[in-house]
């Protein structure tokens, strides 16, 4: 029997991480309302000069906890292991996806922190760092999209008496993947829904990520608890 | 058995070394009185000698001599291919450079 000690501890880090992320999100002055790509270099430089402290502290928080979602994704990959598949390919794929988003997010995070490190530098440079940060932050979707679609596929293929996840979880994941997709094209527009402060690239994308974390958190918790309840009988 | 093989290998090594030493003579003959000059004859002979050495290494040291026909032909073809590429880039390059 595979050991499951500590699974619950890792699982309960999820709400803690979620609370920290939400606080950091609201602490960062550039998220509410999201900074517009049409801001002039001087306006961006002024923003970094006026809000230096909040940018630094919120981004330091993100810097600490950016990788916090990895245990949850690996827990999901372990559930996929229990599905009725003949090969571990899909759980390998989920493991391969786990590190990507935090890595990309850390790159964006670094550019924000660099921007606020010397806000007195030339506005052109601050604008460049700000562009790099926002573009990286907005386009960090590829691994998330792949993760959702792979999870959905894994669930569709899990044909057994009592599947690990219910079918609606797969549909939900496909929906999230669709919601994340437009953000990849954010650089095509400075205004409108595609712009990095627009409806699709900012609101839909980030709300989809939040919804995914909440829903998958609940589903994962139920699955782990159900299995722990069954396990003594099975063993 | 061992004796003949080792004698053959020794002769091969001597031939290869002699060809290497021939480069010294080639190198001296290239320059008149310390004035450097390009020479097609030296270039072509250097490349041809090197490729002959490569073929000897293939045949004797790497035992292609005893190998199936396919490998023998393949290595010979490769030596020709290298010759065509090297001499070809030299001559075509020269023609283009004018």
């Amino acid at each position, binding site marked *: 029997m595979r050991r499951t000690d500590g699974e619950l501890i890792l699982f309960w880090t999820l709400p803690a991480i979620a609370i920290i992320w939400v606080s950091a999100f609201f602490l960062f002055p550039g998220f509410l309302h999201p900074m517009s790509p049409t801001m002039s270099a001087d306006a961006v430089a002024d923003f970094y000069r006026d809000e230096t402290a909040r940018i630094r502290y919120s981004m330091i928080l993100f810097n600490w906890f950016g990788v916090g979602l990895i245990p949850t994704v690996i827990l999901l990959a372990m559930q996929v292991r229990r599905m009725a598949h003949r090969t571990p390919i899909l759980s*390998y794929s989920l493991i391969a996806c786990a590190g990507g988003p935090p890595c990309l997010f850390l790159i964006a995070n670094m550019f924000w922190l660099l921007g606020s490190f010397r806000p007195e530098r030339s506005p052109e440079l601050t604008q460049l760092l700000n562009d790099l940060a926002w573009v990286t932050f907005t386009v960090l979707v590829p691994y998330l999209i792949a993760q959702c679609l792979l999870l959905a596929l894994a669930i569709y*293929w899990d044909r057994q008496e009592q599947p690990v996840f219910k079918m609606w979880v797969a549909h939900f994941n496909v929906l999230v993947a669709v919601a994340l997709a437009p953000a990849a094209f954010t*650089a095509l527009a400075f205004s409108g829904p595609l712009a990095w402060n627009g409806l699709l690239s900012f609101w839909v994308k980030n709300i989809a990520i939040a919804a995914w974390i909440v829903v998958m958190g609940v589903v994962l918790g139920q699955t782990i608890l159900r299995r722990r309840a069954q396990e003594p009988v099975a063993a | 058995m061992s004796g003949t093989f080792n004698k053959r290998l020794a002769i091969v090594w001597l031939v290869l070394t002699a060809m290497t030493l021939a480069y010294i003579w080639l190198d001296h003959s290239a320059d008149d009185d310390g004035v450097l000059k390009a020479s097609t004859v030296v270039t072509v002979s250097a490349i041809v000698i090197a490729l002959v050495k490569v073929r000897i290494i293939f045949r004797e040291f790497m035992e292609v001599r005893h190998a199936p026909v396919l490998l023998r032909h393949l290595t010979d073809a490769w030596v020709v291919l290298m010759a065509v590429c090297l001499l070809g880039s030299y001559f075509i390059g020269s023609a283009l450079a004018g």
Partner: protein
Amino acid sequence: MSTPTGSPVGRFLWNFRHHPKRELWFAWWVMVIFYQLYGVLFFLVTRVQPPASPAWDTPMVVQWFNDRHFGLLAGFGVVFLISGLCAPMNALLAYSMRRMSVSRVFGYSYLIMYSLSAIPGMLVMAIAMTVGALRPDRDPELIHWLFDFAFLSFSGTMGVFMIGSLVWLVAILIDKNGVFPKWFGYLGLCNALTEVVVAPAWIFHRGVFAWNGAIAWWINMVVFVAYTACFIVLLRKMIEREDFGTGPLPDLPPKAERSQQDSVGAVQ
């Protein structure tokens, strides 16, 4: 469970849902599609490959970005959308090592190394190029810096691929299950050595060792394409031969028997 029905679509759907090797074939097709898209996106849509010259002066670089403005933004948008495809691909490569008679360490090392390889391999370049094309009115010097950043991150960060090929080749050479032919292991050494050869791209602005040079780019590209083509074909063979056991991978039966066996396999 019924056997596949007549129409090709029906057959495909049946195979997609019930074929015993569906996960392997899925990953293999994802890999093929990924490399096709990669070629189309980098060579035709964004036209960042073959690479521009590092010897250009700033106005030339700005001009280069202006010529490709929309292609860069849209093409790299698609890159951001699809680069998650490399996850199943790397999972398949890791699986090939799991099927060998070697320690699990090989498969997991390869998986972790390659899971992030897309970041130095293409995503950093895509981000730098996107930001470079984003504001044509940006200070030209900064656009030039983004240009260098993009190409150097793309060409100059090859350690992942070098060590990855080495891990794979050692696994292939000591494997006793015959998952891959040994010659592919030795070819991996050729590939790993060409990854070393791009390092001078960090040093030279022009000539054969620059990031667009004959040695650092063209010859390497040929080797990389040959290596990739080989492993795509060999992975296909591996999937066809897969018996889900742990011993030596069986050889493919002759063609006539194979089609018969396929239908039997499908019924199972």
